[in-house]
């Protein structure tokens, strides 16, 4: 190793450490600042709450055994919506790849549905599915599925035609082309769709809970704002941050494992 390269590595490591430290610092500044502004009553703490109040609320929720039930309700709805939408959306994309006529028939509808704000359908969903978890999961699926279909299908259609020709010259039928080429080539597409769906499925379940529910973080946020308990609203939002971040981390881990397998 040359001295120059060592210097480069050192600089690189220093940058990494600085990066991590800055991130932690930023978090502390944010929390500290928030606490301070609230403590000194620069802004009315009734409106902005404070980190210590948030911790207290979470502790109280935990003691009254409500924390687990609210968190698990939201988590269950979100994960169910996420999985159903991803699997179903991918299956639909596969079917549309096989049947180009059907694909062309559905194209304008997919595009319209994609640009429609799915939230507008909320009231209808409640009429159809009642006020239970089904309606919320359906909302979450609805928000994720269209983008899954569109994303996967465009990935499938972008596979090099020369590769398809190659497989066909080796007597591969459409089914083997799908499995051995088109789907395998789109594992990265699937991973990026998963990442998008993490965010979208949370949007779906929280919106669903806003509209109708007696449980979950979305319910707590709405309830808190109705009775002017902003501490509860903030606490629920903080919990939401952790859950969504955690789910993203799981997907990232999955991505790392898969990418490692492929190179």
């Amino acid at each position, binding site marked *: 190793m040359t001295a120059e390269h060592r210097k480069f590595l050192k600089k690189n490591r220093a940058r990494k450490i600085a990066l991590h430290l800055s991130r932690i610092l930023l978090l502390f500044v944010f929390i500290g600042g928030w606490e301070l502004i609230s403590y000194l009553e620069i802004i009315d703490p009734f409106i902005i709450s404070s980190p210590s109040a948030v911790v207290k609320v979470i502790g109280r929720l935990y003691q009254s055994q409500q924390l687990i039930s609210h968190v698990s309700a939201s988590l269950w709805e979100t994960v169910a919506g996420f999985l159903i939408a991803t699997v179903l959306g991918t299956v639909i994309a596969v079917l549309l790849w096989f049947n180009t006529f059907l694909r062309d028939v559905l194209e304008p509808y997919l595009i319209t549905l994609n640009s429609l704000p799915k939230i507008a359908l909320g009231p209808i969903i409640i009429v159809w599915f009642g006020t239970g978890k089904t309606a919320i999961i359906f909302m979450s699926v609805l928000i994720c599925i269209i983008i899954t279909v569109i994303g996967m299908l465009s990935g499938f259609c972008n596979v090099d035609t020369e*590769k398809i020709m*190659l*497989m066909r*010259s080796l007597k591969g039928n459409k089914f083997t082309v799908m499995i051995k080429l088109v789907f395998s080539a789109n594992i990265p597409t699937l991973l990026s769709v998963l990442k998008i769906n993490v965010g979208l499925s949370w949007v779906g379940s929280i919106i669903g809970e806003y509209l109708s529910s007696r449980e979950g973080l979305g319910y707590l946020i709405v309830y808190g704002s109705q009775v002017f308990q902003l501490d509860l609203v903030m606490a629920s939002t903080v919990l939401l941050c952790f859950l969504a971040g955690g789910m993203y981390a799981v997907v990232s881990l999955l991505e790392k494992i898969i990418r490692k397998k492929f*190179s």
Partner: protein
Amino acid sequence: MSILTVQNVSFSYHTVQEEVQALRNLSFSVEEGEFVGIIGPSCCGKTTVLNLLSGLFTPTEGEILLRNAPIRKSASRIGLMPQRDQLFAWRTIEKNVCLGLELLRENTPERKEYAIGLLRKYGLGDFIKKHPSELSGGMRQRAALIRTLVIQPDLLLLDEPFSALDFQTRLSVCDDVYKIIRQEKKTAILVSHDINESISLCDKIIVLSKRPATVKEEIPVEISRELTPLQKREDKRFNQYFKKIWSLLEDTNDCGTSKISKKE
């Protein structure tokens, strides 16, 4: 005896905008063990010829016979090497090379052994478990050629296999491919728009007109087959062949008529 006969073949593409006649009354034949070059201006229909020969398309008119049987019914096997290597990024070189065996359900231990033997023989022994992204352009091209050889084809079709390589790699890969095809005693058709490349590799060169392609002339190359492509370039007849083919080649086609050709 001819292994392949192409008789009065015509072929047209149909798009909503127009009908593109790619080939018109194309006839030629290939002998067993021969290395035949097809040369023509770009977009004249060279890839189309290969797609017809590999049975992916059916001629609008005319007939293609492989070992005296119509090509789509023939039991004989064809190995197609596309313009770019088209190795699958997610498969190891070994798995890539065995793709054909998998698809043809011939993934027996002996055939796999044969595949690995070829990889070793042609300098890819250390890369069997590697992924294509870890190989140089020339190595990838060799792997792609081995992928076509593994299925033991009766006829090899090479579609401008060197066009994506830089000049230096091109010369050495040319030598490699020539050596491999001669050693494995294969019959091959090489499509190209590079005159030098065609003369240095082939025993016979078929010059195509511009689109719709038809055979302008067949030129036997009488330089010893024992020489490597690089050595052939030194031969004094090389330049005469070059001049002859150069004078036969017409202006390049305007590729821009159809959407598909723009992708190239």
